[in-house]
């Protein structure tokens, strides 16, 4: 039946060699590929900005970019990597693999899927264009207020700042369309008899990710809409002296903390699949692994104020958020141990995908240990605004997510429909007995 549906798709689409195909396609694999390629383009853009940051820091008081230019580079590097690279990269994979893993013909709304891709692309291009419209936002990727309201932005730069804000709004629109699409697919289009809890772990991780996205990005959208009012209509949501700054901080971090897991969960799903495949062994404590992931997804919405420990919040609140923060680290302990014990008594093949995932796990352990340091509020006070946080963050979310997902790219998904990746082989042949061997060598 899957084959049949695929053929239907092929019939009304131009061949893959034509450019038109890629402009009109609604096929989930095509869109997955588009997502991955586009996100890699933004990775390079963000990487160039990172190189510019380092170039500026080559000499003390570096003069290559100038103050405002440097701040733009820092801000845009953060925003590009977090919004336009790492999440869409995951969603390229999800687009490609989730329908295959749950036995659906395509996503529930293929045209909506195409639309969320194109909105994503244009939001990114608008973001890059904002450099040439005066200047993009220059107040850091957290866009703290009131630094980013018109009063503190030089006159000439305001069009560019507004363009950045619109780019963010477009991006949220794309993300929301994608979330709704995936949720519908997960709940309405699974193969008969496949319960949610029985889905392969990558699909489970994507399901939890899209739930988090649905709620977290709503808070970000609210915040950037209010910010656009401040820019366009002269309102004072974030420039008012009483609480304007804190309003932004709360809205932003209510989004920002779940975002950490939105970025990381797909990578965790990939790691779980790759570990099982290349150790030739089912994951240890699968049920608890899934429960731990679900717990993290829920708890991620009640830890945001640990980003604001120094903002004059009172001791009881601080204590509560310290407790929830420590609470959210424990399910991660369990997941890490589950991955490690999956190796024990396995038959581990050290192929490229496994090496990537294995490296990602080791990095994540290091990132987790430095994270515990931050859980201690006394230490957190002093680490605020330092490279400790930047490194902990970039280690555990950035590099780990990227590296582990490289491992899935290493599996050459292009060959999927005829020779499914081995991780899928062992786990998801429900509809028909496809011919594939988990021991297949690559």
């Amino acid at each position, binding site marked *: 039946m899957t084959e049949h549906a695929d053929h239907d798709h092929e019939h009304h689409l131009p061949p893959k060699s034509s450019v038109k195909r890629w402009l009109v396609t609604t096929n989930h694999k095509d869109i997955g590929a588009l997502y991955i390629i586009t996100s890699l383009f933004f990775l390079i853009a963000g990487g160039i900005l990172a190189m510019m940051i380092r170039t500026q820091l080559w000499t003390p008081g570096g003069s290559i970019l100038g103050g405002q230019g440097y701040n733009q580079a820092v801000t845009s590097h953060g925003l590009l990597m977090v919004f336009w690279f790492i999440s869409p990269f995951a969603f390229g994979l999800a687009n490609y693999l989730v329908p295959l893993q749950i036995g659906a013909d395509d996503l529930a709304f293929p045209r909506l899927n195409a639309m969320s891709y194109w909105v994503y692309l244009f939001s990114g291009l608008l973001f890059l264009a904002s450099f040439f419209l005066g200047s993009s936002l220059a107040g850091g990727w957290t866009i703290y207020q009131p630094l980013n309201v018109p009063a503190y932005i030089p006159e000439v730069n305001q069009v560019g700042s507004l363009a950045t804000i619109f780019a963010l709004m477009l991006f949220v629109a794309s993300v929301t369309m994608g979330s709704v699409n995936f949720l519908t697919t997960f709940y309405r289009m699974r193969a008969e008899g496949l319960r949610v809890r029985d889905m392969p772990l990558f699909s489970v991780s994507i399901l939890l990710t899209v739930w988090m996205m649905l709620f977290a990005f709503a808070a970000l959208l609210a915040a950037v809409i209010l910010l656009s009012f401040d820019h366009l209509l002269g309102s004072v949501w974030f420039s008012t002296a009483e609480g304007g700054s804190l309003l932004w901080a709360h809205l932003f971090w209510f989004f920002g903390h779940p975002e950490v897991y939105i970025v990381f969960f797909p990578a965790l799903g990939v790691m779980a699949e790759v570990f099982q495949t290349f150790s030739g062994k089912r994951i240890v404590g699968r049920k608890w692994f899934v429960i731990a992931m679900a717990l993290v997804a829920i708890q991620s919405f009640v830890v945001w104020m640990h980003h604001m420990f120094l903002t004059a919040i009172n001791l009881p609140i601080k204590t509560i958020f310290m407790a929830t923060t420590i609470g959210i680290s424990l399910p991660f302990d369990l997941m890490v141990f589950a991955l490690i014990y999956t190796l024990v008594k396995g038959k581990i093949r050290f192929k490229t995908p496994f090496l990537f995932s294995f490296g990602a796990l080791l990095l994540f352990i290091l990132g987790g240990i430095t994270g515990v340091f931050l859980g201690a509020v006394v230490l957190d006070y*002093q680490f605020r605004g330092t490279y400790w946080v930047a490194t902990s963050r970039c280690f555990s979310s950035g590099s780990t997510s990227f590296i582990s997902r490289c491992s899935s790219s290493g599996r050459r998904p292009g060959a999927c429909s005829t020779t499914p990746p081995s991780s899928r082989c062992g786990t998801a042949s429900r509809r028909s007995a496809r011919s594939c061997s988990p021991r297949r060598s690559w």
Partner: protein
Amino acid sequence: MGPGGISTEIAYVLGQTSGLSKTPADVFETVYLVFLILGTLVGIVVIGYTLTKAYRYRDDGKRDDKSESDKKVVRPVLGHLPAGSGGGKKLFVSFGISAVIVLSLIVWTYSALLFVDDTPPEVEAEGEEPLEIDVVGKQFNWEYTYPNNHTEEPTLYIPADRPIRLEVTSADVWHNYGINEFRVKSDAIPGQTTTAWFVAEETGTYEAVCYELCGSGHSAMRGDVVVMEQEKFQDWYANTTDGSTSGSVSSDVTADTDANADAETAPTEGEA
């Protein structure tokens, strides 16, 4: 590190020392040291274990599937729904151990948090009241107001060995006031007042820095912190008048102060 070492540290941080011998900087150093040692140990154990097992169970083509230890292992089978392997007990034991370590560390640091967040009570009992200074961040400078309404900018003059209590706010955008040497840091938010305290134990010149991106002059938003001996500070403070500023106080006083400070710094550093 044995348990005895840790309990000594705990006693230390819980405040079984007196007076000025314990400052927020000391607390930070102790907690940091304990975390660093434990974190390194945990990292070595976990990563060492992982690497060992990954090597031990590599697929070298020699092991036989039918060996005794492999029989219990659940291998992926074509057409089956994904299931889990056994080994749940080991999983929960490791999880339990890690949870105990993390939770006990956090409970322990909570007392340190209470100490840092509180005013310094044991010091007040000795009759040495903390010096209260208002700090206002503004692009791109720090302005200090002393109890007698004298304002100083951009240099902060304080006495050594006396708790300094800061009330920090901002006149424009979000800043973060921090003096790394004394392990003190506090957000400067417009419309909000945050508090923090510290003790400077050694005279000398240090630096106060902004830790929150606040515009194109952010990286230059730093000012000296001059720590003077208590008598020197009293002399300097007596010369400031109600409502005066660093600019309006006769320049010779300020210059004199700077000279004092410099004179102060030199011998101290010599002694050290």
